[in-house]
């Protein structure tokens, strides 16, 4: 019944990610300049690719051993964290991606947990915020990363929770959202990191839920896509950041899920695979991952549940005993529109 453009082109996206993986692990396509110019994003890219594959139900589409070897080759012995690529400096961004990959691949035993915990904790500043590396750039993104990583490593008890939360609270704005540091404008990406950090730390009480869920719902534009700030353009990656925040606040039904689903699907590249920031643009693995993750939260049929807090397979997080009380839309079984499901969620929400 459905038109092709209404469907997620899973086999095509899987092979798109596999081709990127071949360049990385099997030394194919090494003659591509763009591949080398983006080396500083490599570790993140592997995490995005792997997680997108897990969400699409193909967790084994990339070679596991080569992936683990690659991750370990990015270990920065001097700093005690991971760089984005061999010989690149350790940074908290690539360190979280490395941990997420190792956890997803069930290979955490490769990791010197004490050292990496020490590295992460060394980045907390007197104000409570985390720096990205020893050079001291600060951002609430890095606070989330620290909380997420410590939680995955089972070492959250080493964190000064009050100090961490206190800084995030100072970044809260009157619109209910959060900025990258004290005084900064609310931004959907920063809202995601702050909500997720607070969710992991069981401190959602500091969020003004009615105001924030209003602000988040207003991110949806008439074409169905979501933007990251008022009066800005839509972008597929905000699908995940806005949706994950809404699902942590249990307000995912506040937006039009059918229209957003169509928007994400319309940003697919139907020839080469992958998803772009918006229809007609070049696809990349970042938008492919966040587009697929958004669709999973919207209950798109056939996808695997993703945990919106950790942005990893939900079953894995549940198995580790880390699942928090978020709520996604119910997984649909057919390709019919989802309105009925939205109503169900509404009712179950009211029943509780």
């Amino acid at each position: 019944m459905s038109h092709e453009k209404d469907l997620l082109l899973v086999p095509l996206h899987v092979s798109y990610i596999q081709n990127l993986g071949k360049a990385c692990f099997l030394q194919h396509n090494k003659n591509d300049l763009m591949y080398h110019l983006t080396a500083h994003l490599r570790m993140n890219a592997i995490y995005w690719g792997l997680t997108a594959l897990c969400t699409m139900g193909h967790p084994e589409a990339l070679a596991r051993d080569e992936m683990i070897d690659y991750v370990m080759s990015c270990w920065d012995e001097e700093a005690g964290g991971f760089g984005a690529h061999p010989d690149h400096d350790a940074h908290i961004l690539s360190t979280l991606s490395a941990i997420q990959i190792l956890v997803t691949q069930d290979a955490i035993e490769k990791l010197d947990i004490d050292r990496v915990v020490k590295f992460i904790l060394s980045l907390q500043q007197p104000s409570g915020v985390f720096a990205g590396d020893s050079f001291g750039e600060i951002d609430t993104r890095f606070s989330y990363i620290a909380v997420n990583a410590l939680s995955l490593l089972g070492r959250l008890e080493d964190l000064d929770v009050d100090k961490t939360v206190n800084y995030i609270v100072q970044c809260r704005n009157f619109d209910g959202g959060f900025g990258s540091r004290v005084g900064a404008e609310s931004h959907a990406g920063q809202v995601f990191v702050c909500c997720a950090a607070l969710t992991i730390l069981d401190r959602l009480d500091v969020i003004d839920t009615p105001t924030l869920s209003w602000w988040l719902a207003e991110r949806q534009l008439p074409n169905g896509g979501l933007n990251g700030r008022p009066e800005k353009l839509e972008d597929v990656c905000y699908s995940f950041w806005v949706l994950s925040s809404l699902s942590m606040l249990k307000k995912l039904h506040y937006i039009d899920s059918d229209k957003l689903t169509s928007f994400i699907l319309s940003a697919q590249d139907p020839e080469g695979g992958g998803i772009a920031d918006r229809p007609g643009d070049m696809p990349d693995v970042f938008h492919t991952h966040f587009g697929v993750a958004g669709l999973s939260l919207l209950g798109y049929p056939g996808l695997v549940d993703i945990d919106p807090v950790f942005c990893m397979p939900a079953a894995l997080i549940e198995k580790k005993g880390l699942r928090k009380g978020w709520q996604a839309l119910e997984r649909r079984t057919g390709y019919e529109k989802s309105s009925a499901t939205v109503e169900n969620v509404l009712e179950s929400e009211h029943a509780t």
Partner: protein
Amino acid sequence: MHGVRQARQTREALEAKRIKEQSKLHDYLALTDDVLSRKNQNDWSRRALQATTQLLQVNPEFYTVWNYRRRILVNGIFPESTPEQIKDLLNDDLSLTMAALKIHPKVYWIWTHRGWCLNNVPSGPGTGDDGDPRGWEKDFWNQELFVVEKLLDADPRNFHAWSYRRIVLSSLPVPRPETSELAYTTRKIESNFSNFSAWHQRSKVLSSLWTEGLLDERESKEKEFDLVQNAMYTDPKDQSVWIYHRWLVGAGDDIGILEREIAVIQSLLDEEPDSKWCMESLVHYKRLLLRNHASLVDHSNLTRDCINLLEQLRKVDPGRKARYSEIGEVITNLTVLSI
């Protein structure tokens, strides 16, 4: 990758591009190998610095190379330089990052490197007894405010630039009066009402001016209401203005302000009967009346207004109807409870 249009190319065109890229690629890889091997050997020479310049000009996103560059400067070059020379070196780095920001205005690493340069300006030209030891520092930071304004002229919503602007403002050796920042946001808002970044900044500046007693809160709020009403009537669909208005009204402790603003919005709604933002705001402010001033208002009338407005909102803004329904239920339940 953001906003890069996809161009379908023929096999021949792609092949031609690939061949053209090969020499570039070869140079890039050779340069990368050179820089990373020097880095591994803790090479802090001028030759190493020059190699990082070349590499960062091609790829300003290579954060490891920015890190290495700072190590070269701190460990190798600064110790053998005069303060004057250090100042000139930092100036070179500011030019390097400026060129990079023109092409990549949203790359975190470049902004970070600029901030590092500014924080490392040596004392001079004076020594304390003779001339101003913070003279260079003042020049650098003042110049930086000018630079960040240029970048915000190019993209008035760039949140990196706004964030950096706040750092610059708080780092100026001679702080500017906050009223001049208020004037800056006025200029930004007047050139474009949609610029929520400027409204946001304004809310922070005003809060601080009020707290410090530098502006009379009541009087300055009235001016803000005038400004916002003007913007509302110019484009009632622009959410920046409505969000700011909500901040101005705040918790709704002042019944006079609430009732007056409700009347203003109601008359705009009469002109623009489908205005979602008028209806949304009316519901919000009427609920504040109900919540904060229960003994002074007509409870059943306000409740009925809200229920009707929410019903209309479900029609004009069906994508968000679940939220309107939920608010409606909350209001109805409160009514039931109060009876």
